[in-house]
């Protein structure tokens, strides 16, 4: 009872949109598809919906192979980044439209439409046309239509991108709850890692047309299997450092020499060290600390926090710190990272487990 892909791929001319993907989404839960722009989220959704046919592989839903089945005959709903409503229908008619197509009688559909409108706070606007609504209300109408339809699979393709911040926060909170009661499998695509974390549920990270990892959101965030997943699930971007394991410890560019207690026993090889911006501190106090230094390029201040952009050797780093920091560009900074917050990847970009 879930949505599954077997060896799925999609190629348009020479361009690979989706590379061999095996994935089995859990039924009736909120799934987040997380990845940067052009990572294949929309392509994958179109395959899920059946709007496109895969080049190879198959799509299974509820134990049935639905690969060749027309979109019209699958029971699914989709909400887009643009606000898609029928321009000359009232809000009520818009929400009711999929039920009308299913040929439900007026008495059957009215309570469902009213309930959906109530959940999405649209009751006062039932007689308005979409162009008389605000952006948020228009998107609520589209969401209500998807909710009311009673689809088994609901695909939400970055539905909150075009809304302003306040509305986005509001809907972000409501969305998982709204669909939780319907029993539908929900797939929500987004580019923002913190959105995935706030939505909870399960997350599949995507990069370059591949699903890199799928699992409970917090697990994927804390224990990314590989560098691609860690990169996709980090905003600001993951800070990276190239290291070489020697007999004494780890050596890096600019004569850097580090001791990494959790990784003392890894074989001699080349590694990539990653640490998240909020783990890069400008004050050190713990024991297992790594000392680095960097040169400030830009400081972004967002009221209560600062994002300090730094340059170290060839790498651009970001330190995410609390408080307002006024740092002039070019200033040298001492930086600290706790070794236990570091992620180590081998030369295949796979995570090296830390020894506890």
């Amino acid at each position: 009872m879930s949505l599954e892909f077997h060896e799925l791929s999609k190629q348009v001319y020479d361009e690979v949109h989706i590379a061999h993907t095996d994935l089995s989404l859990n039924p009736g839960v909120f799934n987040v598809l997380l990845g940067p722009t052009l990572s294949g989220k929309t392509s994958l959704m179109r395959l899920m919906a059946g709007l496109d046919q895969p080049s190879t592989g198959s799509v299974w839903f509820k134990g049935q192979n639905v690969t060749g089945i027309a979109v019209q005959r699958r029971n699914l709903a989709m909400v887009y980044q643009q606000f898609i409503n029928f321009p000359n229908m009232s809000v009520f008619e818009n929400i009711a439209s999929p039920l009308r197509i299913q040929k439900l009688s007026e008495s059957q559909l009215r309570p469902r439409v009213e309930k959906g409108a109530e959940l999405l706070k649209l009751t006062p606007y039932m007689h308005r046309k979409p162009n008389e609504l605000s952006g948020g209300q228009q998107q609520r109408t589209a969401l209500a239509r998807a909710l009311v339809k009673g689809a088994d699979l609901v695909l939400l393709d970055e539905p909150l991108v075009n809304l302003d911040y306040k509305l986005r926060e509001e809907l972000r909170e409501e969305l998982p709850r709204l669909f939780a009661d319907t029993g539908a499998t929900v797939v929500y695509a987004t580019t923002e890692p913190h959105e995935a974390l706030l939505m909870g549920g399960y997350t599949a990270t995507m990069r370059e047309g591949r699903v890199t990892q799928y699992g409970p959101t917090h697990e994927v965030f804390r224990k990314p299997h590989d560098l691609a997943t860690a990169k996709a699930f980090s905003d600001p971007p993951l800070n990276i450092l190239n290291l070489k394991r020697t007999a004494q410890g780890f050596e890096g560019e600019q004569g850097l020499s580090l001791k990494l207690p959790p990784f003392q026993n890894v074989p001699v090889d080349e590694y990539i060290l990653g640490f998240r911006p909020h783990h890069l501190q400008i004050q050190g106090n713990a024991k297992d600390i790594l000392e680095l230094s960097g040169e400030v390029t830009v400081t972004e201040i967002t009221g209560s926090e600062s994002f300090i952009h730094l340059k170290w050797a060839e790498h651009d780093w970001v330190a995410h710190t609390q408080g307002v920091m006024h740092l002039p560009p070019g200033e040298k900074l001492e930086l600290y990272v706790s070794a236990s917050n570091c992620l180590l990847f081998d030369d295949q970009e796979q995570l090296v487990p830390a020894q506890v």
Partner: protein
Amino acid sequence: MRSERFHDALGRQLLFTLLILLIEVPLGVGIALTMPRQGIGVTICLVLMALPLLIPWNVVGAMWNIFALPDIGLLGKMLNGVGFDYNFTQNPFWAWATVVAMDVWHWTSLVVLLCYAGLRSIPDAYYQTSKIDGATSWQVFRYIQLPKMKRVLTIALLLRLMDSFMIYTEPFVLNGGGPGNSTTFLSIDLVKVALGQFDLGPAAAMSIIYFFVVLLLCWVLYTLMMRDETN
């Protein structure tokens, strides 16, 4: 203003306008809907569609005049060949049919191009949504394409309405507003009065009325079409 001649010309003008709008608008929308949306076909179709628009009015008239000649013209000969008594210089019905056909040939492309532009501006997500909901192609047309094309369609209608009142060259070249007065539209009549008979007073009055008729029609049409957008 009681002039029967003027009333007749006005009546003919209105009938002509009504006819060409009834033919050109649905036909234009229909062609726009069937035009390809991508590939080399788009360019080919657009060029083909733009061709008639590039031809000067008097050339269109002259072309159709020759094309429709009952004895040597391709169209005239063919129609007579299949049994019609086609002669646009003698029979008012055929004269009308020829003028209307000429205008449709010349100007439907304008409607097509405007509608096509309107259709192209509809995001693909609309079509996907309707596909997912299982809407029929009629429902897609009625609830997505038509409302989304409304603005360009209004412009197309107004342009064709005003242009159709300007019709002069084609019927003039074809057979000078004949046979008799049967294709003497307002503009032709106006020129006959003003320049043929040199009755400048009545001609000036006519042209003022002419102007107000066009203005009134445009206003009524525009208000009707924009009605539910403003309230």
